[in-house]
């Protein structure tokens, strides 16, 4: 069981690094779908204490549907309809972003080792490392890219990271399906609303470049 979860974590880290490096928007959206599916699968292989029950599997299917299908689907439509230029246009270059991602991994290993979490299983330590890296990479994507749609993707990567931290730390949450469902619903609506605003931004500005928006300041 632990081996499978390690493979999943490695895949998450790879997808994070790739998303920092890629220069095509479509590739980024596909990476998001992949990352969504893998992140949803992680809790399945972490519940050694509780065992796998029907609820867990049902919830896994729901997560995959939302994170792996609906949200990337919405992003896919947005890229097709809205974005004319499918280059990513970074503020911080690809190599610098990738390097920042690597530093993020080192940093999260350092943090995890210095938290003194005696009652955390060793497999959870790895989970925490990849979770913190994912969250940090999401923040980098959010700040270092100019297009509004990449900012949404950055937010989603960050949200994935926070979800993984929740999986690593707070086991109790993942047995409360009503609450988790509500969080998921919020995420879905967030992407929907952001998509609608994106569409309007594109209509008004003829682009989704946030550098065009600088009217409001003091």
């Amino acid at each position: 069981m632990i081996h499978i979860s390690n493979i999943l974590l490695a895949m998450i880290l790879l997808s994070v690094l790739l998303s920092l490096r890629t220069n095509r928007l479509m590739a980024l959206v596909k990476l998001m779908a992949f990352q969504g599916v893998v992140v949803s699968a992680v809790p399945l292989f972490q519940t050694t204490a509780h065992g796998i029950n029907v609820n867990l599997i049902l919830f896994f299917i729901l997560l995959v549907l939302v994170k792996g299908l609906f949200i990337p689907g919405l992003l896919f439509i947005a890229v097709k309809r809205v974005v004319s230029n499918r280059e990513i246009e970074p503020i911080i270059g690809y190599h610098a972003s990738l390097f920042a991602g690597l530093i993020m991994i080192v940093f999260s290993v350092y943090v995890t080792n210095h938290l003194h979490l005696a009652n955390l299983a060793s497999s959870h330590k790895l989970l925490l490392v990849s979770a913190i890296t994912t969250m940090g990479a999401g923040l980098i994507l959010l700040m270092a890219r100019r297009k509004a749609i990449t900012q949404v993707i950055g937010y989603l990567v960050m949200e994935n990271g926070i979800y993984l931290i929740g999986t690593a730390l707070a086991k109790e949450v993942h047995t409360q399906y009503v609450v988790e469902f509500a969080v998921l619903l919020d995420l879905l609506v967030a992407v929907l609303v952001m998509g609608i605003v994106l569409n309007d931004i594109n209509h008004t500005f003829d682009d989704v470049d946030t550098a065009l928006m600088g009217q409001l300041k003091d």
Partner: protein
Amino acid sequence: MLQLTYIIPLVTGIIVFSLPVKPGRLILLATAVVHAVITAMEWFHLTAPLESSYFSTTPEGMLVLAILSFLFLCISVYTIFYMAETEMSKEPVFNGCMLLFLAAMSMVTIADHLIMLWVAIEATTLMSAPLIFVHGSRESLEATWKYILICSVGIALALLGCFFIIFSMEMGGIHVPITFSSLNTVADQLNPIWLKAGFIFIVIGYGTKMGLAPMHTWLPDAHSEAPSPASALLSGALLNCAFLGVYRCHLLMVESGMGDYSSNALIAFGLASMVVSAVFILNQNDYKRMLAYSSIENMGIIVVGIGIGGLAAFGAMLHMIHHSLVKSSLFLSAGNIFLGYGTKSISRTGGMLKLLPKTGVTFFAGFAGISGFPPFGLFISELLIILGAIQAGRHVTVSLFIFCLILIFAGASRLVMQMVLGDRPEEKTLIPEKWMRALPPIILLLSSLALVIWLPDSIYQTIQQAISSIGGTLNG
């Protein structure tokens, strides 16, 4: 029964989306009335207490719910007559989102589960975003984008904070439901380090939503670009809801014996907000932005008061009530000014007493109220906070606090004087003012006045219960 406060607006909100404009307006008003009736019944304990694993009634929640319900009733009357003048093409969307926004905020006030509260606060962001960009102008789109992105990222950090608090519970080896009410009972067994970390993340997260500096950057944009009824709701009700999230966590910290730490954090954030708004209000040329910075200032005042505790905590709760009433009245007046002059720029307004006499009076009276002049309630609440701070021996805090108040008053009074009494070359307005649009701001101001003259015992008791666990009292 209390769940109806969010179920009814949720259902009617979805219905209004598909209805034509006129019945939509009626449903908006009807829902506001029903919401007020349910809140009043709950307030006077006419219904069975709430039994649910995710929701519960708390004194501070009931206080915020009562303010919300009253404000929404006044604002919905105003909205109907405001919308009739503006001919907005997307009015069903606006009315529907107002109702969904009401549902989300009502859910915040009764949420007891840590993550349910998070879900509700995030829902308020999502439901209010369409209210801001309903005009579809470049500026409003920019404001909306900033609002969604900054608040969503901030609130995502609050989710991390929630996970940390849950982990502090698991580290402490206890298993209780993840609700504030049950966590408060076992607060001393929680792991202190993780609880502290959780508190900081939650203050940053919900503080973003509340407009605490330095996470306030979305607030002036969103408040100035939204249509005025939405700004009034954002400033008068939404900021209180975010404050409720911060306050619940502060209570948890106090119960676990780390009240000093959280108090100092709150005072630091509060003073920072006051300084920032004092700096930015001085050279403002947009009256709605001016009001928005004033909201940042007042949120700062509230958290400073809560952080100091004792007499100041009572002042802070009183301040929350009166700020909501006066500030939403000001935003509604600002809407009338915008309809009258067709501009948000201060330099192109003027002579309001002659051109828009009713609005001129409400705007000026509202300004006197928000600057802390008697007979309005903010005078008493600010005085209580200052006295509480001196009593607690926090002299640096109190000097900075008073200095900021003076600076903001000096900056804003110049602008307001120019608007109300200044000269204006053209002697005509675009849309003449109407009683139905002037009445809601007047009612809001009068209710603030009435609460100064006579504070009903039930409100007094509720405030006392809300602040008793952080050592707050009026008899300090």
